């Protein structure tokens, strides 16, 4: 009887306590939990996951002179998810002897983010390359999947000029690149399905994706089916890529903050479930 009364009292106290917490305290705590490790990193271990390593290995195995289509459609809002991975993978590509076709298909914000944030981060590597010979930029091309289909079928027809207005016939890199069959790899930002449909399925061009962390579970079947050769999903995977290329950047710096924020969310979920469980049991 005493235990029952005490148990009921505890349930009521826990329930009331949780209910009384102003959510704004949680926001404040979140600011502290995320901000503290950014100011003083903890150096938590970062194991490399298979999809990230697979993309790294694929780029490493590219024969010299291979042509890679790199889609840098990074939006301002999704910068933390896509920006660091774009920079890390581009750094890796620029360190190899491969030709890069830059393009933005996912968003019109791509060229602005490329010019203001990606380009400064890879400027030291771009200096060693020649525009038009080692890399070329076509800027934003509207149409998304329709544009992809057109590019895959006939690049010269779909992209008559580069971002600076130079006719494609006058760009040395593009001289022997006519269709998707001339590409060794497509690395895209955002969603993988359109690239698989337009590049991998009809032409057999390997496709890799830099996507949001939330897409990782949904894209694993494509990895298992061999339709994706690699995946960098979110900032955590971007941090792994930075470790692989030995060039720590934005992603590595935020990995501790991210880990702690996840722990914080897990604690909140446990508290929320505890409240629900105790409250529900009392009602029954």
């Amino acid at each position: 009887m005493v235990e029952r009364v005490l148990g009921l009292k505890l349930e009521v106290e826990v329930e009331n306590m949780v209910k009384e917490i102003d959510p704004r305290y949680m926001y404040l705590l979140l600011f502290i939990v995320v901000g503290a490790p950014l100011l003083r990193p903890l150096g938590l271990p970062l194991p490399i996951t298979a999809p990230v390593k697979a993309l790294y290995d694929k780029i490493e195995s590219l024969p010299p002179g291979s042509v890679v289509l790199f889609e840098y459609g990074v939006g301002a809002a999704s910068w933390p998810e896509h920006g660091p991975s774009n920079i890390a993978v581009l750094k890796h590509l620029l360190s190899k002897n491969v030709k890069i076709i830059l393009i933005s298909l996912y968003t019109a914000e791509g060229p602005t983010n490329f010019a203001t944030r990606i380009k400064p981060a890879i400027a030291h590597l771009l200096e060693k390359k020649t525009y038009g010979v080692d890399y070329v930029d076509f800027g934003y091309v509207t149409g998304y999947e329709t544009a992809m289909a057109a590019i895959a079928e006939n690049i010269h027809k779909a992209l008559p000029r580069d971002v600076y207005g130079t006719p494609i016939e006058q760009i040395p890199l593009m001289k022997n690149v006519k269709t998707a069959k001339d590409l060794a790899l497509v690395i895209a930002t955002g969603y993988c399905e359109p690239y698989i449909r337009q590049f991998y399925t009809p032409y057999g061009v390997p496709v890799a994706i830099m996507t949001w962390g939330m897409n990782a579970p949904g894209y694993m079947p494509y990895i298992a089916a061999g339709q994706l050769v690699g995946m960098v999903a979110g900032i955590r995977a971007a941090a792994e890529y930075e470790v692989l290329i030995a060039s720590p950047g934005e992603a590595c710096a935020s990995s501790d903050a991210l880990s702690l924020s996840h722990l914080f969310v897990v604690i909140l979920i446990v508290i929320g479930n505890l409240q629900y469980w105790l409250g529900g049991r009392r009602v029954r």
Partner: protein
Amino acid sequence: MEFAELASLISGLIAAALTLMIYSLLYRENILYRIAEHTFVGLYAGYGVAFAVKNILDQGVSRISAGNYWFIIPIILGIMLFTRFTVKQAWISRYSMAVMVGVGTGVSVRALIEAQIVRQIKASVISLTTGPYTPIDNLIIVLGFISSFLYFFFTDISVIRKPMGYIAKAGRYVLMFTFGGAFGGTVLSRMTLFTGRMQYLLSYPAYYMIPVFIVILCIMIYMDVKKKSK
């Protein structure tokens, strides 16, 4: 200080101020949040229109001037879309919409069956001991696929009702695990966006705005407390 440095400093401070103004919603709805929100909407609309005009010039007008006159057709179809803003002529825009939907669907569907159905079924027919995963992973993939697939088998056959019930129940658990994974991924993504913004706020010159914001927040709290006590 050079002009470029000054411009970078000012733009950095504006970006930080706007971020903090948006975050001020976490305390309560206020005028700073509304200013930032409306600025964003206006700016984004302007950016979108500018890019749309650039696209029409680059993809359409320049090609027409180069002699590809058939590019007039998509431009006419595009203009037809604007009839949606009228009541009597709105039906004209349906033709443009029909072309857009038709082309979009046609382009996607031509490889969809192979890419997203046939290949996925093929990938589920796997040997337990080969491939990139461990035998346990492969077993989970096969059993998870079969059970979650049969969860959506709605035909009621009395002979197999009982075993089907068990399989469907297992399928429901597999789906629940998947939803849990998807939810975890969504939280991860949102946290990443927040972490990215925090990283920016703690960098130069954005951190100059933090004390300013704290002062504003303290004033807001003080005013709220004063209002409440009255």
